[in-house]
């Protein structure tokens, strides 16, 4: 029983990158782009974070640069989709391959290492103790002593929900995503809004990468995103583009990961557990599909 609080604590830590990336992907989705390239942007963020922290010793600057790197990768990605009408799925997959290839190429050429960058005394992100919360049993263990990015991830959920539903920006973005022609008629430039949402998604993914390489551990490896960009995709599909269900799904996937780390030898084999987020998406999409089909049939009958 006394494993529960530590497990939840590492679930919070491990779900941070998934929540961040999923929030970014969600904003992008509402803006009209399915972002398959979160994985690559996360990897770029993780790499740049380690690089900058190593060279400057400043993990905050490193985190900010990682966010910038994510946004920077996102811009050409977005322009290719919005201006050159490239297929978003293929561009996403292509960018993932391209970013992984570029980093994998630079590691030996520039830094003389293969597959990983592990500088000695790398400054990771400090864990913040929340005064007052610390002394609360269980809750203190679960929520205190985390990186700033964790608190940012938690705060991003209501912030994104509020921005999307209650602000002019949110309405314009959703208009650009749902009905670009109507948006254009209303004087909104849908493509510019789409690009902006992709850059925001890139920034979120870059921060997610920084949490991986400076928060959870303090090193970079080429495989460290380990499909989390796709798990984030799973989360916002599972949450049907709504912030709270998306965050809940992302946390659930983080919890599953934490249980695996914390309780090895639990009943299910780890490979089967790894499949769960992906199965969940297929189940969720199927349920949505069945509901839609039924509605359409009913509409035809009446």
């Amino acid at each position, binding site marked *: 029983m006394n494993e529960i609080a530590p497990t939840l604590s590492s679930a919070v830590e491990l779900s941070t990158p998934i929540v961040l990336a999923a929030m970014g992907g969600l904003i992008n989705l509402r803006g009209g782009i399915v972002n398959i390239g979160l994985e690559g942007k996360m990897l770029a963020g993780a790499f740049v974070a380690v690089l900058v922290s190593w060279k400057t010793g400043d993990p905050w600057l490193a985190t900010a640069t990682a966010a910038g790197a994510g946004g920077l990768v996102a811009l050409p990605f977005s322009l290719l989709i919005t201006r050159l009408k*490239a297929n978003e799925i293929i561009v996403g997959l292509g960018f993932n391959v391209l970013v992984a*290839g570029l980093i994998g*190429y630079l590691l030996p050429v520039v830094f003389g290492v293969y597959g990983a960058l592990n500088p000695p005394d790398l400054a990771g992100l400090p864990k913040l103790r929340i005064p007052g919360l610390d002394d609360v049993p269980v809750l203190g263990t679960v929520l205190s002593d985390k990186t700033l990015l964790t608190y940012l991830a938690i705060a991003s959920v209501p912030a994104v929900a509020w921005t999307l539903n209650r602000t002019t920006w949110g309405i314009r973005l959703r208009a650009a995503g749902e009905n670009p022609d109507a948006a254009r008629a209303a004087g909104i430039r849908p493509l510019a809004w789409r690009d902006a949402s992709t850059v925001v998604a890139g920034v979120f993914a870059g921060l997610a990468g920084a949490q991986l390489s400076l928060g959870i551990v303090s090193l970079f490896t080429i495989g460290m995103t380990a499909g989390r960009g796709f798990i984030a995709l799973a989360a916002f599909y599972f949450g049907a583009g709504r912030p709270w269900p998306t965050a809940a799904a992302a946390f659930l996937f983080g919890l599953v990961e934490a249980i695996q780390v914390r309780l090895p030898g639990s009943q299910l084999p780890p490979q089967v557990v790894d499949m769960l987020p992906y199965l969940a998406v297929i189940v969720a999409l199927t349920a949505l599909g069945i509901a839609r089909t039924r509605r359409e049939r009913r509409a035809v009958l009446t």
Partner: protein
Amino acid sequence: MTEAPAVLPQPLLARRLGRAVELVWALTPFVTALLVGAIILWATGRNAVDTYRLLVRYSFCDRDAIAATLAATTPVLLTGLATAFAFRAGVFNVGVEGSLYFGAFAAAWVGFTYTHVAGIPLMTAALALAAGAGALGALLPALLKVLWSVDEVVTTLMFNFIAIGFTSYLVNGPFLAEGTANSMSPLVADQAGLPSLSPPSQMSPGILIALGAAIAFWFVFARTTFGYELRTVGGNRRFALASGISVRRAVMIAMLVSGLIGGVAGGIQILAVNHRFIDHFSPGYGFTGIAVALLGRNTAVGCVLAALFFGALANGGATIQFFTNVPIELIQILQGTVMVFAVVQLGRGIARRS
């Protein structure tokens, strides 16, 4: 009447011009990728011209090099054809990697289970089961699409990870070879292995199967009614419906055939190269297949040329990493660029969705 001949050359010229434009479009991603690669090589102090020259030499200089290139071409030609088959019918199957894993495991299972069976029947059974397993892998996304219009892009993409995870479970649990700690199945029986056509390379009869598949691909789309139906469904679904073509049947078959070819790709790779199923064995053959299909513009000849390009890169790239200080990741950079720039032009029509 006498003026008629004078009119003729014009459409002919237009067609020729059209073809030339098509060719330029087709070569754009290829050239762009080489340029991007050259810029990166140059920026990191490598001579791009020398690097590319060495790549060509290591891939094609002699019999052994060509055989090794063809060996590396085999899996990506099959995954490319698998992807292109679905794309042609307007079905966006990005799950060939998953079918490849299922096919690979099925072939390995036949090979290490029925060790007393003679060579030819064993190989045939292994490849047949690989094909079946690959198709089975595509069945669920296909059914979901046909029954409830569940978007196949997401389901097939997710399905890749499920297939990789599931086969990883099989090979770490029930089918872990005794005496090995490293997530691999027992070796397949010796007689089940596809022999090398040109030792020491791993070029197997698999390349002939892949070329045969390319010819069959061409024949289906160029010469059969069914291929015409698939193309019509891919080109204009409403028109297809109006012409009385069963769109559901076409989508279903396109997905299953795509999975089937992907499964065969996995089976051949196991029987010719790995000789056992190894956890996470594929370096992304299925995803390279997407690049092959795009670069080859979903045609048989295009896929053969594009697969040869990626096969040469994989083979030459490995050698070049060994002899010079150019990391093999250069190939990934080229592949990613090809994918991105291939759809920039495809935005004009071929793979456009909804």
